[in-house]
């Protein structure tokens, strides 16, 4: 759980328009060579250079060790992540990413893998399908999209195994929604079901699979958008009790900086919700970003949540 320093500096080596408003980017090490391995379902944390951090799933075959491919759909209400990717990143662009992480691992011991994808939710599932194909594991895909033009990897899927894919195009269904209950009716309890897509689809599948063994039903929710960190300034944090001080750069929290320096303190949520990392402020002005302190407590400037809150002043002194 601790913050990791496993940043990779990669280069965009290919950009392809995969479907309407969907781009696939290929990332490689600038020197070439082998990248940290990933497993199907993994994502990268991408530091977009404009201060934003976004998570994008890898869609290529995990057996490929020399490249990462991510699919990025242009969100209609983009808060700066997907629009930055679509408008700014080109072949040759440099990009900092985390090592691959996987919150949505594929259970290849399953008898059968059943995938439900909605829109750009297809990206982690493409990597899973490729992993299944590599070991001849039976799979099925239910793939919902607004229309054929917006269906990423349509050609790949058509050539790979058309008999395994059932498409649901909103504009060809007279407005009928994907029927998760009917679609999954014939899926045996021994199969593992993986779903990635927009909230309503996820909820429909969740309801339709409620009576299945829950260790065989897997969801990858689109992660919440990160706070806009583009205006963050670096500052110095002084720890009174240990007499040390550290620089907190933009894009890293006080908690992460302390952890980097082996001075970690208890935390739980890392989202400013739980108060586990509540810390007494001795000097400096806090930029409060938590959901715990009351307005009056925030104004008193006496305590802060170091997992999310920052400094308005150049220096912040804490009782640590």
């Amino acid at each position, binding site marked *: *759980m601790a913050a990791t320093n496993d940043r990779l500096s990669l280069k965009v080596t290919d950009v392809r328009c995969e479907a309407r408003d969907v781009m696939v980017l290929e990332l490689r090490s600038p020197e070439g060579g082998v990248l940290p391995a990933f497993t199907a379902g993994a994502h990268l944390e991408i530091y977009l250079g404009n201060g934003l951090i976004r998570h994008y799933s890898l869609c290529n075959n995990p057996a490929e060790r020399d490249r990462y491919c991510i699919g990025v759909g242009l969100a209609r209400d983009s808060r700066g992540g997907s629009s930055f990717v679509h408008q700014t990143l080109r072949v040759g662009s440099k990009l900092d990413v985390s090592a691959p992480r996987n*919150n949505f691992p594929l259970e290849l011991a399953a008898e059968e893998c059943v995938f439900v994808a909605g829109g750009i939710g297809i990206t982690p599932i493409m990597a899973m399908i490729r992993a299944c194909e590599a070991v001849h594991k039976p799979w099925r895909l239910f793939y919902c999209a607004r229309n054929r033009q917006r269906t990423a990897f349509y050609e790949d899927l058509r050539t790979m195994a058309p008999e395994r894919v059932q498409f649901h195009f909103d504009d060809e269904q007279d407005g009928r929604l994907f029927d998760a209950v009917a679609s999954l009716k014939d899926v045996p309890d021994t199969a593992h079901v993986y779903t990635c897509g927009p909230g309503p689809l996820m909820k429909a599948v969740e309801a339709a699979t409620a009576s299945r063994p*829950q260790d065989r039903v897997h969801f990858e929710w689109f992660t919440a958008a990160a706070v806009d960190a583009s205006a963050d300034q670096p500052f110095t944090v002084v720890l009174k009790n240990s007499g040390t001080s550290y620089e907190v750069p933009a894009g890293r929290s006080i908690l992460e900086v302390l952890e980097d320096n082996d001075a970690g303190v*208890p935390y*739980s*949520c890392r989202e400013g*919700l*739980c*108060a586990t*990392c509540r810390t007494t402020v001795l000097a400096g002005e806090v930029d409060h970003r938590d959901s715990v302190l009351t307005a009056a407590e925030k104004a008193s400037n006496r305590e802060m949540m170091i997992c999310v809150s920052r400094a308005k002043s150049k220096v912040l002194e804490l009782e640590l």
Partner: protein
Amino acid sequence: MFVRNAWYCAGWNYEVTQGRDNLVAREIAGERVVLYRKPSGEIVALEDRCPHRQAALSRGRKEGDSLRCMYHGMKFAADGACTEIPGQSVIPERACVRAFPVVEKDDWIWVWMGDAAKADPKLICFAVGPSHPDWVIRTSKMRVNCNYRLEIANLADLSHLAWVHENTVGGSRKYPEAKPQHTLTPRGMNSFFWVRQVPPTAAVAHLFAEGTLFDLRFEIQMTVPCNWIMHFTIYTAGTATEGDSNGQLVADTYTCQAVTPRDADSVDYYYSWGASRATEFPGLSDMLRDTLNIAFREDADVLEAQHIRVKERPHLKTIDIALDAGPGKMLWVLDKLLKEEGEPRTVAA
């Protein structure tokens, strides 16, 4: 999943007697342990598993300081070495069972589950046992079918007194409003807070005139795996809103609780409560123990139902709230020790 290098409470010392058949079988942090007393009085803790074919040694027979497996008759000394294999003259070196370091302290039996060379009795938590001359302590125990991390979270945040123990040891909304001061210790966390101007809880309301209010002082020492020692003092409500109460002392009590994980899905809970000799009156400490027996069943009902749900969706992303500060800190300490021992972090709770 479990910290190995820790003292785990294996029960009250009166449970392990000189009785002929008194071989006490426990599960502690995923290990089977059999406890018995040598004629000298010293307690022995051996792995409850014959090295021959895994028969339960707790179904065996005491012979002096030794324990004989009653399947094929292999006999083991108190240090775990095999001293006899009937019908065979040579005893293989590997024919021994693991012996665990054991200490009796504060009327509890403590067993060290890790590297015996690191078994420092000074690491056993502070407690006040029933044989302490200054306190009238009553004891009890309970089995709860939940993961011990849920017990940690339960004990590290007493705001649940308001809801879970509405009819016993809580009920006031002042508990979630208390702002406990949590201080980290090398193997746990100390917590301190006052709850002021509260009516008596349901379990004791009959003892006091209607309208009586109290100031309650909570001073808690919590250590891994899940030992929870509370010095709990009751005063009639005074006027002070900070610092010590200026009300009258009603009762000064200690409740000492050790939650020992058996496996991932159950714990053995050994606990006590009682008043100081100076504030005890006939029947008070007995009532406190009886009250805990009821209140901990209330906790168990909540935790067992919670455990079932956590097992159904172990990876569900749950939300945190401000009351999680205590549990967050204590579980962080536990996870830190687990990490230092090189075990993967568990995701439950």
